[in-house]
């Protein structure tokens, strides 16, 4: 049973790799940014676990800024991806402008919240 699941998992990972290699470069850059933001968030949570959550607003603002940029980057990826038929008419410049605007608001609020 274990063998079949592990070989299953290996096949899964291999096919995922090959399928992912086919995505265009600009989307891969966005994905890299998403992974970077998630890793930063994880590091912050681990640090909070070690040190304690005393200025809770600072911890929250740090984690939420990572989560926020992740989510906004994923939204950008969705809007820019040519395979999404719903966003066929949306020019990528507009998507990027929305992304920058939302990030600006996000970071302004984070800076206010950091204390």
């Amino acid at each position, binding site marked *: 049973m274990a063998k079949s699941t592990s070989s299953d998992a290996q096949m899964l990972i291999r096919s995922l790799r090959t399928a992912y290699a086919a995505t265009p470069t600009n989307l891969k850059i966005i994905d890299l940014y998403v992974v970077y933001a998630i890793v930063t968030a994880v590091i912050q949570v681990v640090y909070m676990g070690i040190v304690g959550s005393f200025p809770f607003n600072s911890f*929250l603002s740090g984690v939420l800024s990572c989560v926020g940029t992740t989510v*906004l980057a*994923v939204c950008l990826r969705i809007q820019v991806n040519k395979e999404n038929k*719903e*966003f066929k008419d949306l020019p990528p410049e507009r998507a990027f402008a*929305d992304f920058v605007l939302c990030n600006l*608001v996000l970071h302004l609020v984070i800076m206010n919240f950091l204390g």
Partner: protein
Amino acid sequence: MGAKAENGVKPPPLAPSSFPFPFLRTLKLKTKQQELLIRVSALALIYVLAFAVRLFSVLRYESMIHEFDPYFNYRTTLFLTKNGFYEFWNWFDAESWYPLGRIIGGTLFPGLMVTAALIYRALRFLTFAIHIREVCVLTAPFFASNTTLVAYFFGKEIWDAGAGLAAAALIAICPGYISRSVAGSYDNEGVAIFALLLTFYFFVKAVNTGSLAWGLASAFGYFYMVSAWGGYVFIINLVPLYVLVLLITGRYSMRLYVAYNCMYILGMLLAMQIRFVGFQHVQSGEHMAAMGVFFLMQVFYFVDWVKYILHDPKLFHSFLRITLTCSISVGALALGIGMATGYISPWTGRFYSLLDPTYAKDHIPIIASVSEHQPTAWSSFMFDFHILLFLFPAGLYFCFKRLSDATIFIVMYGLTSMYFAGVMVRLILVATPAVCLISAVAVSATIKNLTRLIRTKSKASQTGSSKGTSSLKASAKASLDQALPFQRNAAIALLAGAFYLLSRYAIHCTWVTSEAYSSPSIVLAARGAHGGRVIFDDYREAYFWLRQNTSPDAKVMSWWDYGYQITAMGNRTVIVDNNTWNNTHIATVGRAMSSYEDEAYEIMQSLDVDYVLVVFGGVTGYSSDDINKFLWMVRIGGGVFPVIKEPDYLVNGEYRVDKGAAPKMLNCLMYKLCYYRFGELTTEYGKPTGYDRARGVEIGNKNVKLEYLEEAFTTSNWIVRIYKVKPPKNRW
């Protein structure tokens, strides 16, 4: 052959002779422009109507703030305009809840005050020298007008422009909304309903277009709502519920992902800037639904994406299995640990009593005692909604016929808000926009169908008669004509009926506003013997007496209802006020009011009380006085101090103040203060002295003697009575 479409000037859709605005044709406007002109002028009239219908009390009495809570809002707005935002945000008030004080900056919703202060600043900048009180009085009608505009756009989004106009017209005069937004009712709800509808409109727009910009707008709308009213919890629970319903029914799309995530993350961050809300978005049970749906969405869309890039269903199934088990176990574990350790606080009493209406009566008497928190009776629904009550199910039918993301949202909003409106009278206000929007859909669709029936009939008959050669279509139509000969007449009759109903609605709303919702509560009016109007201005008389005749650091003890008014108008320190944040303090006051005079004197000495204020309606027949509220004082006091027992004040379970009343009742402080010297007064012709007109009985203890207090002031109609606490006697 038939009416061919022309590109130039089109003839107006109705027969030219019956067109009511002949001058429009002289302006040579195209039909589209005519339609735009009609729409804009209708909206402008609705805007002015929404403002004007709320002005009854300003015209009848004067421009003043109504009720109790608005006085606190007025006082804080005054402070804000005088001292600036930084002082306001960090304000600690020593004048209420003596000796505890209240951190006002951190325990209020600043949206209303900041809005009024901004309007005041803007008017001052344009050199209109208006007093801040006028701005406060007229803020609610102004925002009601703005709500009609938002309702128009929202209706346009859900259905079409006709429904938008109907929604704007219905919500402009709907009594459910007017009740909390008349001129003078300077309360959070006046601004909050505007913010609520704005947030929902922006969110539905974001879901329809999938644009991050609209999502950002809805986050700002949510921030405004959080800054304005505690009812924002409704938004943060309805939107995740909506997302969940869309996910389950399979109507999800990428646009939903973009809209919800943008709104949730940015909205949550913005909401946490309000100190009163603080970290509740990550710590309180009421906000956990939104977070749960957020994580569910991430997992859901991630799995969807993997399914898309993997072209092999078998592999995908195994991946799905692994992911599902991992995520469900992690989620359940996190939730379980959170609730078990108490990190995620359970639902607070205020909102829990919405899910379980019997909870408050048994556990939290303060919440149960507020009259606005009682369950709604059918008469209230009819009173506040009139024809919208049966247009609402009709609108639901139309929405279900044309299901889209927007109509699903409005249906859910309507159903959930109607449930909560049934639980608590106060929440009819939250249901009103949904009911108006859905009814507008019904009205618009019905009238459109009816007028289309009328118009096609006339067109077919015109073409049939003017063009002699009959194509198959024309002959078919002609035969249809003969098959249902009264269809056109029936349509006209139904249309007339619909207009009649709408006109009755308008008459009802105006009547309700005039009779029921325009009383300032602080000034009472009655009809005198010759039909002239008699005004009782006792409250303000008493508060201004306090302001002018007591020392500036005097402390006033009264029941919590009057606290805000005393601090705002009397400018004196109070012991308890309407914020009701400290139940024990209120129970102490309740205990003092229901004890014998000597025990009460000890309590009053411990609280440094200088004056006691009671409200008494025995001379005028005013029934919202302290004797009628007295049992709540006993219950709340007895909830904390078991020495106060409710059965001591009742006789056979009955509450009486006449000769047969309980002895504790006849000698408690509240009784003595209300009926001091009342035994010598004749209130009604033919009745004995000491006849209490509010209870309709002759009082039991006419010979009231006070030992530790002395009467300081009684207003001209005996409604407010103020007593001074005597200092302790000299020892020798």
